[in-house]
């Protein structure tokens, strides 16, 4: 199945979790200082390994950047 990880179309196995998408973005499931949005809504850290993704889901992996 195809999901968008930070805007990039990415192939993942059906049933893949948020943690899998994180791996694609170069993060481990224990990473700190980042947050994940699935289709615009927060996925709490505790749910990264249990939240499964669907076709065309948008996963945003976000961290601190200079700003403001």
């Amino acid at each position: 199945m195809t999901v968008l990880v930070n805007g990039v179309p990415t192939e993942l196995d059906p049933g893949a979790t948020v943690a899998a998408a994180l791996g694609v973005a170069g993060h481990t499931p224990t990473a700190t200082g980042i947050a994940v949005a699935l289709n615009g809504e927060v996925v709490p850290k505790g749910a990264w390994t249990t939240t499964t993704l669907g076709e065309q889901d948008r996963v945003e992996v976000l961290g601190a950047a200079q700003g403001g």
Partner: protein
Amino acid sequence: MDDPLTIAGQAFSSRLIMGTGGASSMEALERALVASGAELATVALRRTSPDARGSVLDVLRRVGCKLLPNTAGCFTARDAVRTARLAREAFETDWIKLEVIGDDRILLPDGAGLLDAAETLVDDGFTVLAYSNDDPILARQLQGLGCAAVMPLGSPIGSGMGIRNPYNLRIILEHATVPIVLDAGIGTASDAAVAMELGCDAVLLASAVTRAREPALMAEAMRKAVEAGRLAHLAGRIPRRLYAEASSSFEGLADLSAPLPEPDGR
């Protein structure tokens, strides 16, 4: 003199809050933050990239700055609320600099959107520092909703125009029940001093330092200017007058006139 800034019960000895945007490198940012003496600094939330990841946080940790995430880039209350929630998840802080922007060229706040987002976030337990227009009514509504600080702009973000309307700021300050932080528009040191002299509790700035020719020098200038302005506010300035008032007394002035010519020609 012990004169801390207190926001939501947390005391800071520095009244200069730094934004981290605009620096040419992490090293330049770190030098500027050190020179600024800031204890609180904003960060934005952006997509991670493997190479750059984490380093702003590292800088803030080394420098000892508390992190203040912002919702920069959000044009709707909904996006700002979502971004605030993601920031809380990522950085384990419920402090948020709330921005809801009305236009991507002028970057001025959208008052109605700001009120919506502030209400939701306060209800959701956030400590909201609201980046606001210099509109006294809006400022009062934001503090009425429970924002921990109201942060009116001096002029548009990055414009360097200083405080365009000190009168509005005075009205905001006279009605303030929470700390008022002058946010956006500072161009140089005297602008920061003016903000503090007017009675602002703190100043937040980024571009004025990070985009100066010498960021660390300007950061030091800003630190001193904020302190100078605060002290001047507390010291009670002299009134303005159209005419002069002598600082050298005329009392005891010498009579240095030459002797009048005498009839006898002496």
